[in-house]
């Protein structure tokens, strides 16, 4: 009878299992290392992608500069930063968001964070990637050839109490202006024209009258890289020529904010700290206009002629393609603070003039308006900042 060896023992199975465990561990280790390396390489790629999205976002924000949102703020921290919501990059490689800090009247910091698509969708372990960078921008002001309080393309007659003053003035209540600058000419006019004063009218400045052959049609129609038509096309308010009477003045809505929907709200230069004190519209009047009151600020573009009576005050730049006629002035000191440019002849203070009809040069008003109405561009140098 064949007997079965019941307690037969061997090591083959044990050895095989041990060998498999060891080999398995090594393979798993190698696989783990390889996977880690792959993840790191992927991470690097996503990081680069996020960086590209952040840069693209910053460029897009500058390209689509929003003058109402950005320029209409007071400098940080008087006003908080303007928040930029998550926006898909044009390349579809991710999204960006951020904040825009107004550092000064003409300086801005764009703080932009970019996320690649996978990170934005929270599909990466560890939360994915953010790349944050900053871009410094400076307002690219309109290149208006301002060398005098009043620049004209034809002869001028001043009478009554009219005064044109090229000395630098700071408008009453404008507390954030720097020191006054050098005086400009009172009247700068085309060659061959005359500037006549009668009665108590006066022209002041350095010099009082500057007859300048470089004053040409383009002085009134070309402003650096853009022309009058393009500037008009960018106006915040476009209205036909009419008699505005005393309808021009700031309007605050029920929420206590400047109401930009009202076509006769042209900002508040008399009260810079009011809600409309930071609103500097470009106003385009497509014909002849008569204005008696009350006030506004910004860039006033008039295709026709302008007749100003009563106590109307304008703070900023005025460009008139036709003629300018002023009379009166009421209890206010001036009609215009800033710089005034009149393409055709100017006739001041006729016999109907009562009180003051003044045109005062104000560097501060000009700069404020230029900074408030123009778009920004990268600073001349060192505009790129790595934020942490």
């Amino acid at each position, binding site marked *: 009878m064949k007997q079965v060896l019941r307690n037969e023992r061997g090591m083959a199975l044990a050895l095989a299992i041990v060998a498999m465990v*060891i080999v398995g561990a090594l393979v798993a280790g190698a696989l783990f290392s390889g996977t880690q390396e792959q993840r790191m390489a992927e991470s690097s790629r996503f990081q680069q992608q996020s960086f590209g999205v952040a840069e693209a976002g910053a460029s897009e924000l500058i390209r689509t500069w929003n003058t109402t949102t950005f320029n209409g703020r007071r400098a940080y921290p008087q006003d908080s930063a303007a928040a930029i919501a998550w926006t898909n990059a044009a390349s579809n490689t991710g999204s960006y968001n951020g904040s825009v800090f107004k550092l000064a009247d003409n*300086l801005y910091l764009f703080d932009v964070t970019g996320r690649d698509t996978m990170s934005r969708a929270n599909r990466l372990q560890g939360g994915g990637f953010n790349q944050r960078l900053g871009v410094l921008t400076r307002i690219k002001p309109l290149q208006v050839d301002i060398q005098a309080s009043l620049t004209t393309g034809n002869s001028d007659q001043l009478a009554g109490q009219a005064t044109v003053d090229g000395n630098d003035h700071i408008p009453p209540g404008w507390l954030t202006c720097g020191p006054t600058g050098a005086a400009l000419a009172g009247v700068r006019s085309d060659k061959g024209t005359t500037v006549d004063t009668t009665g108590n009218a006066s022209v002041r400045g350095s010099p009082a009258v500057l007859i300048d052959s470089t004053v040409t049609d383009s002085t009134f129609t070309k402003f650096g890289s853009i022309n009058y038509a393009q500037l008009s096309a960018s106006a915040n308010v476009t209205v036909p020529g009419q008699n505005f009477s005393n309808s021009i003045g700031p309007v605050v809505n029920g929420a206590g904010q400047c109401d930009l929907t009202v076509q006769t709200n042209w900002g508040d230069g008399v009260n810079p700290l009011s809600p409309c004190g930071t609103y500097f519209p470009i106003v385009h009047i497509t014909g002849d206009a008569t204005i008696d009151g009350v006030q506004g600020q910004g860039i006033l573009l008039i295709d026709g002629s302008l007749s100003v009576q009563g106590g109307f005050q304008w703070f900023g730049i005025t460009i008139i393609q036709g003629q300018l006629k002023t009379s009166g002035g009421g209890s206010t000191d001036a009609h215009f603070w800033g710089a005034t440019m009149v393409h055709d002849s100017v006739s001041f203070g006729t016999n109907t003039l009562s009180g003051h009809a003044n045109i005062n040069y104000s560097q501060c008003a000009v700069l404020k308006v230029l900074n408030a109405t123009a778009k920004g561009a990268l600073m001349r*140098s060192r505009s790129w900042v790595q*934020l942490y």
Partner: protein
Amino acid sequence: MHHLTRRGFSLIELMVALVLLGMISAAVYQVLVSDQRIYQAQTQKIDLQQNIRAAVTILPAEFRVLNASDGDIYAMGADSIKIRAMRVFGVVCDTPILGGALGGRGVTVRNALTFGSRAFSSATDSLLIYYEGNAGTRNDDGWVSGDLIGTVAALCVPDGRPGTKLTTNLKPFLLPKQNLPGAIPLGAPVWAFEVDTYRVYQAPDGQWYLGLRPAGGAIQPLVGPLIGANGMTLSYFDAAGAVTAVPANVAQIEIRVRGQTAQPIRLADGRQMNQVDSILTRVALRNNRRW
């Protein structure tokens, strides 16, 4: 009586078993050794790749922010570069008094808008402060420089929020910049930088590394080991894409890093040698003057 016969292993059986065991053990050993070699080689290669990848993370971040046209590159060569390395960025919230002496000017920066890899350091930093000049034009905009000689906590003047007052000895303003009141406005950006040198060097262990030498400090390894003195090569290009040797004309820098494994790797044929890998990238300098 029935006897249970127990038979032992014969010598032949034992020898066959031993031979078989030996063969199996040898095979397992070969597998183990091979796996170990692959594992070590893999680890070394990963380290190598991480190393050279680190180089193209660190260097572009340093170069990207340079303004070569305004002198941020002090010296440059194929294996080294000496630069103004930007460390802190801030925004002025109390302006320096200008129009007179330039020494000991105080300028306060707002803490909430200060960014950097570290804090301001009067031991190593110099400053670049935005010069506005005539606010009506961008053509005179630029930067004035000065050595940072002190920092102290302070409050921003317009609003009383936390800031840091930086005391600096400003350097003479170069035309068209003029030392006039108001030339540096509220909100002006400020950069703090130190002068650093990146270069390839051979360490006492005989290996070659990409090192960082801060101004007045000793060189320290950043990335390595590299394959040798040519382990990192820098090439410089101007705005037109042509190679340039003029620091002020540099618009792009090409970085080529060639690294090797820290230890030799045993190849399948038994030879041992270091594995080599390389990486190439090109960086555009973002902060050059535009006109």
